[in-house]
């Protein structure tokens, strides 16, 4: 079967994902990644309505710290990423569904296998909360992200040390969203 650029043509009973072009698969993957973030927002909203903001935040932290090891495993298995050093963590992080390229703009500076710096230039939450809800932004960056990043890194290696180099509002108009250092002391 000729490679399909999309699925605007007729229904194909036994169609497989491999029948689509890489570009189509990329778009579908992006749609799924966006859905992960949207679904998460709906859950937060419902919990906020029922049990309040603080309790909803506690649930959010628990959710990400528990799902982290699974998301890392699924991603590393999908891309056959082996190892337990900082480089392996950075490679998996580049393709995490909940941290998808296109929604987040980020750059990894891998200095060596045990030392890397992640710079997030654009983050949807940072952009949204910067103006609307600075308090939530600070919580998001200092509490939620700190806990989630720790859990995700620990899934690769509990000895990965994380240092926040720039987190939260800095007050500059064109500031980066955040910057983190990952290191394993040898």
């Amino acid at each position, binding site marked *: 079967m000729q490679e399909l650029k*999309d*699925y*605007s043509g*007729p*229904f194909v*009973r036994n*169609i497989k*994902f*491999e029948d*689509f*072009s*890489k*570009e*189509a*698969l*990329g*778009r*579908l*993957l*992006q*749609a*799924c*990644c*966006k*859905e*992960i973030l*949207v*679904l*998460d927002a*709906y*859950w937060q909203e*419902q*919990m906020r309505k*029922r*049990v309040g903001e603080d*309790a909803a935040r*506690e*649930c959010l932290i*628990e*959710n990400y710290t*528990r*799902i982290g090891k*699974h*998301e890392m495993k*699924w*991603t590393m298995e*999908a*891309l*056959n*990423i082996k190892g337990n050093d900082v*480089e392996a963590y*950075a*490679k998996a992080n*580049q*393709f995490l*569904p*909940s941290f998808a*390229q296109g929604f987040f703009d980020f750059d990894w*500076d*891998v200095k060596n296998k045990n030392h890397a710096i992640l710079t997030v230039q654009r983050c949807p939450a940072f952009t949204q909360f910067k103006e609307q809800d600075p308090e939530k932004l600070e919580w998001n960056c200092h509490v939620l992200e700190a806990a989630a990043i720790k859990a995700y890194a620990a899934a690769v290696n509990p000895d990965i040390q994380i240092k926040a180099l720039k987190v939260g509002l800095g007050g500059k108009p064109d500031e980066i969203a955040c910057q983190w250092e990952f290191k394993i002391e040898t």
Partner: protein
Amino acid sequence: MADLEDYSGEFRPDLKLTDFSKEALVRLLIAASKMYLGADGMWTTVIRQRYGDEVALSCSKEVWDTNWKQELRRPTQAMNIHGNDIASMFKYFQIDPGFAVMFDIDYELRDDGNYGLMTVTKCRTLEYCERHGDDWLLNLACNELDKPLIAETARFFNPEIKTTILKLPPRKSKDDIACQWEFKLET
């Protein structure tokens, strides 16, 4: 650069999704689908443990009452799926990361496309519930969510599509199908 079959090699700072082979992208799509349904399941678990079944049920229902349209909109846009017949709906089900990626499903169209039969032969949610003896979760997934939302999805494609459930879990044997749905477009 040749397509990468995986990412077992060295770190590349500017690697993009399209640098991977099609097979690698499909595996990544499955990983993303697992995360999508896994995160939803984790929310349900966390809320059940903290606030009980009732809060988790009402939360989940309200989340999906809103979210199902988002789940429909993005993949259909990404794959340029249009139309208001059963075939168009089946095309969406086939590529939906929250549905087809995770389940084995057979589709049959008859009567010039005015009759459709969808059979889920393998459902990972059902298998999870059976493995853990979790009837509450099974009821949530099948009766509280899928039952209304699949019919709603059919009406979204065309208000004249009538949905009939031919079979829903629980099942007697692990060799049985998970569920079966019939769609009729009255013309």
